């Protein structure tokens, strides 16, 4: 069967500094991280002929191309639904190089997420199109922020699985342990205790402050090409063994409240099914993971979606440091979006590549097979990375 298995390789990664106030434009951040990714790959801007990003990114790909002198583009695209696009744009790049639509594709995401528009401040009446009608079912009642939407799912999940806030805390604590060793992380050298988690202020019951990711200014980018080209390049390649997008039955953007059961993630189940079928791999093969962590609870659901544990059993799986370096599944070794930075999952793509290269700040011994996922509660995406043979 024709598939994307082993047809595309991530050969370069780049990022800006992460901060709470970058002091520069989102275009500047995008140009910097794209430049860094191209340099990391040992390429020059003129080699790039494809670009892809999020619909939410404020910077047009052609503006980034002009800034860097990239020149001609034969492929460009955008993926909607916020963090759900994180691996979706890798998927775009992979399809473009596998079909010959482009040779070297850059994916990027750059935002002033703290000093500019802050997602935590919620949606408002200013938005346009059919989106506005959609939010109209929630805005009058105060359900305006990502935390408020995810809290509704989390409450039901905790009701059905008897998962406790102290279980959610295990996710926050493990990512923080990793961030303590990562100089690029906001929480570098700043540890978190269970007591601090439990006494942090309630944001949207049952989500407390440390169940929520950060807001960050910064940008991340990566370069994708074919395995044939990748073999002669500057960095060891991270080959894409399986990659997929998915939107599932009765999907809404962040508010899929109307399904018979909302304590599961049908769209991520569908991503898992595809990437396992494509790669010929299974849950037992996954050695490390970068699991999208805009909120602590969503990590638990994804572990279940990818069959890393039985449905409803994630709270048991994550006990005893399973997500930490040395545990069953070292996860979010950069600190994740809870503790490194919130770059809409693209900092996670870059960490996935570092894990394969063996250059993570918290490098596990086994790194042949790394799972990387995208945002949850929205149409989403995921992939499995491996070492280029």
């Amino acid at each position, binding site marked *: 069967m024709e598939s994307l298995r082993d047809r595309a390789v991530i050969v370069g990664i780049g990022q800006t500094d992460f901060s709470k*106030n970058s*002091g520069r434009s989102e275009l500047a951040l995008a140009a910097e991280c794209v430049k860094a990714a191209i340099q990391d790959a040992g390429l020059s801007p003129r080699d790039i002929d494809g670009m892809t990003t999020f619909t939410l990114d404020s910077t047009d790909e052609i503006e980034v191309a002009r800034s860097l002198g990239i020149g001609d583009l034969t492929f460009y695209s955008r993926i909607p639904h916020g963090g759900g696009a994180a691996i979706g744009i890798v998927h775009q790049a992979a399809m473009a190089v596998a079909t010959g639509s482009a040779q070297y594709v850059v994916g990027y995401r750059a935002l002033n997420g703290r*000093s500019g528009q802050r997602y*935590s*401040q*919620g949606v*408002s*009446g200013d938005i346009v199109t059919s989106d*506005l*009608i*959609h*939010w*109209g*079912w*929630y*805005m*009058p*009642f*105060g*359900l*305006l*922020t990502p935390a*408020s939407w995810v*809290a*509704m*799912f989390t*409450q*039901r999940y905790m*009701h059905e699985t008897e998962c406790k806030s102290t279980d959610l805390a295990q996710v926050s604590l493990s990512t923080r342990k990793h961030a303590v060793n990562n100089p690029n992380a906001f929480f570098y050298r700043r540890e978190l205790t269970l007591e601090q988690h439990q006494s942090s*202020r*309630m*944001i*949207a*019951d*049952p989500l407390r*402050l440390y169940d929520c990711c950060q807001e960050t200014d910064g940008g991340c980018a990566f370069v994708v090409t074919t395995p044939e080209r990748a073999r002669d390049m500057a960095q060891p390649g991270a080959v894409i063994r399986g990659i997929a997008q998915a939107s599932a039955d*009765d999907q809404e953007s962040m*508010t899929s*409240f*109307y399904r018979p059961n*909302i304590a599961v993630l049908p769209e991520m189940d569908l991503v898992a099914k595809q990437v396992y079928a494509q790669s010929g791999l299974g849950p037992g093969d996954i050695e490390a993971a970068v699991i999208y962590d805009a909120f602590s609870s969503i990590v638990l659901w994804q572990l279940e979606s990818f069959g890393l544990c039985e449905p409803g059993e994630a709270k048991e799986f994550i006990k005893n440091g399973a997500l930490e370096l040395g545990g069953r599944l070292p996860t979010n070794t950069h600190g994740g979006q809870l503790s490194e930075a919130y770059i809409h999952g693209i900092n996670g793509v870059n960490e996935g590549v570092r894990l394969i290269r063996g250059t993570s700040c918290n490098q596990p011994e086994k790194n042949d097979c790394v799972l990387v996922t995208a945002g949850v509660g929205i149409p989403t995406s995921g992939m499995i990375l491996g070492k280029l043979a």
Partner: protein
Amino acid sequence: MHLDSETARRNQAFEVGIREYVGMKEGPPFACPDLVNEPMIRHWCEVMGDSNPAYLDADVARKTVHGGIVAPPTMLQTWDMRGYPMRDPALIQNKQRELHALFDRAGYTGVVATDTEQEFIRYLRPGDQITSETTIESISEEKATGLGIGYFIVTRTVFTDQNGDEVGWLTFRVLKFKPSQPPAAVATDGGAPKAPSRIKSPRGHDNAWWWEGIDAGLLLIQKCRDCGALRHPPGPMCGACQSSRWETTESSGEGTVYSYTVLHHPPIPGYDFPCPVVLIDLQEGTRLVANIAACKPEEIHIGMKVECRIEDAGEGMKLPFFYPAR
């Protein structure tokens, strides 16, 4: 925001003025008035409730890795504290005080300490002579905070011993801010300012009829005219049979809580916080987001029976509210 040229010029002069302080030493190195000593260690431990014998009991301390009494590391900052003169600006003058005065004159009269970071390089022992030197490390951009608009100022103090070796450091962050005006005080000649209200749903082809039902006191559910499937939120086409023909049926308003959240932060103007939001399974089989009323947040639970009343939510906007079933 429109600024007249005079205001813009003054703001720019202030910005330039405060930035000149970044990187400056607060003053010359300060030799702490007392050597590290046991009485002060004992007093500090007593106040802090720390009974660690390594700090207090010479016999026990001698047998520890320290070989004698040491000072608690977190006591570092106390050695250079100046006592009561700290409260009197006339008695201590330095660059940090000068900088704060600049902020005061520009209206940033509030000050609050926000956080500190410290590193302790070695334990201090009785007899150590500590010297501190403080640098104004950074001033943030102007920030909007809950207390008001302001700037975060970070100072870094480095502590050295009698040999000139660094024994620890601390950074200290304060917010200098313009205290927020209560809303009434900013009222212009138009009278009292208008309180913000809940955000209304926009109305279009696919949803206006539902909100008009609410306006008329009816909780409606969309029903496919061909297959009879009920759907909410409503839309132009039936997902089950692709028919575009539909009608409405009135809900009994009876339901159960399927899930819920209580919103605490950020408080959004126009809504009462903490704000409970419920996801209701209506008896007819569709689900609906709304607020719950007459129920304390801690009393809300999944499976709770509720009933709908359509009520005025201010500014003539009607909304469905769910009450605990009688």
